[in-house]
């Protein structure tokens, strides 16, 4: 509860709502003007929500989870108590997921349902893919927030340079991209609505997301256990 209260300040909540409303507004405009199959799922859900809105939303929450506590020096209030470090990390990680996953899943579901292609289990596929992405990003960005005070900068480099640029042109690197895990999961659940562009198979996508989540979670616990806390 404390982690959740710290994660969601009024300013952050306002920012997250604006971030969520932008793709929804764009989808509404496109829906009323173009309304062709795949118009919303491709450019809006894939190009905007999954590629930009989702990672930035999770980044804002997760990098601040520890970053803010390091900055305002409240971290020592927790680390001088007999609380296992992994439970502190789990609370921070869970707070990010609890806020970001429903928000991003709701945006993904609404946009998918607005698309003529978004029938059958397509909304569910979009939601599951997004939740997988939120979980993996949350773990990676929580670690980044504890590692450096420039977490947002490094996070943006990863999202905009590695995921948006390099993995687009070098297909082999998609196995090291959380965005590809999202596409792979959604495509695996509904291959009609979610095309094969930028995609890897569902099994490696889920394994990759699981590995990223576990590895960065453990790295965060290790970092918290060994770092000097001023």
């Amino acid at each position, binding site marked *: 509860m404390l982690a959740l209260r710290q994660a969601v300040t009024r300013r952050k909540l306002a920012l997250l709502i604006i971030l969520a409303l932008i793709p929804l507004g764009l989808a509404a405009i496109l829906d009323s003007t173009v309304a062709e199959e795949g118009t919303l799922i491709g450019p809006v859900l894939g190009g905007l929500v999954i590629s930009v809105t989702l990672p930035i939303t999770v980044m804002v929450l997760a990098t601040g989870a520890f970053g803010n506590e390091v900055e305002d020096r409240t971290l020592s209030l927790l680390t001088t*108590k*007999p*609380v296992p470090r992994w439970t502190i990390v789990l609370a921070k990680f869970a707070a990010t997921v609890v806020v970001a996953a429903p928000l991003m899943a709701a945006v993904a579901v609404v946009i998918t349902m607005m698309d003529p292609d978004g029938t059958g289990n397509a909304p569910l596929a979009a939601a599951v893919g997004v939740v997988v992405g939120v979980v993996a990003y949350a773990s990676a960005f929580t670690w980044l927030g504890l590692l450096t005070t420039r977490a947002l900068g490094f996070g943006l480099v990863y999202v905009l340079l590695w995921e948006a640029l390099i993995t687009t042109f070098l297909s082999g690197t998609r196995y090291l991209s959380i965005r590809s895990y999202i596409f792979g999961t959604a495509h695996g659940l509904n291959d009609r609505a979610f095309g094969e562009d930028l995609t890897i198979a569902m099994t490696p996508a889920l394994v990759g997301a699981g590995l990223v989540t576990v590895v960065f979670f453990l790295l965060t616990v290790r970092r918290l256990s060994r770092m000097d806390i001023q």
Partner: protein
Amino acid sequence: MTTASTPAVEVQNVSKWYGSVVAVNEASFDIYPGVTGILGPNGAGKTTLLSMMCGLVKPSRGSVRVLGEEVQGNIGLYRRLGVMLEHDVLYPFMTGRDFVRLAARLQGMNDEAAVDRAIHAANLEDAQHRATGTYSRGMRQRIRLAGAIVHEPDVLILDEPLNGTDPRQRVEFADFVARLSMQGKAILISSHILEEVEALADRILLVVSGKLAAAGDFHAIREKLDERPFQVRIGASKQREMAAALVALDAVESVSLDEFGNIEVLTRNVAELQRMAPKLAQEIDSRLYRIEPLDDSLESVFSYVVQR
């Protein structure tokens, strides 16, 4: 509870450096039950030393043991260790009571009576249901103290606990610390103000520039501090005659004139100088404008002890 014969905290050859900056240099000492003060000017390395004793900062070299156990990475030790660091941090959205209750729950306690006791000890019953964001500096210090003692630790480490408190709160704090000390707890209090530590601690550790300059009984160290020569500036209308008269006093070690015509006197007996200077001025028919100490800052006091 600890026993008087065994150290509650053992610091052995501890150094800490950040890059090329040495924060603590080869410090070794033991802390026993009772009240121990860590005294030193700002930036002397007190907080780094305390942070290492709390397990928050890893020594670059040496070891710190609390209650016989390595403190670094020893999470279970925090059940017997209470910590209040210098940084004035709280969760501003929480009430004081919720903050102390959170501290208790993080200790694995679900004990409202313990929360009541800690808040009572901090004398914050009236303000316990207010958000800590509305507290004064002194109140914030006291609610943090309540959070540090709610689990009744054997060792209590308090970094600058009297910052922001008023004189009445200082007296109450001294009583509170004395009670804990009588229960056999080991309490470590840091300060950069000599008089604060004097009122609270029996033993002191004097830290200057990352080094342990002196350790032991407070009064012996205080005497050593009082023996140091003091610089005093005296303003008089007949500077040269006054300087000649002053240099003849036993209490005066040397006399010089500064660029503004003031007399600078080095003395080991300020009281005697203060008593004699007006008499001398009267004898030579000089007006006396001022008598003021020049180097009574803590830094100069500490520097003197280090040089010794």
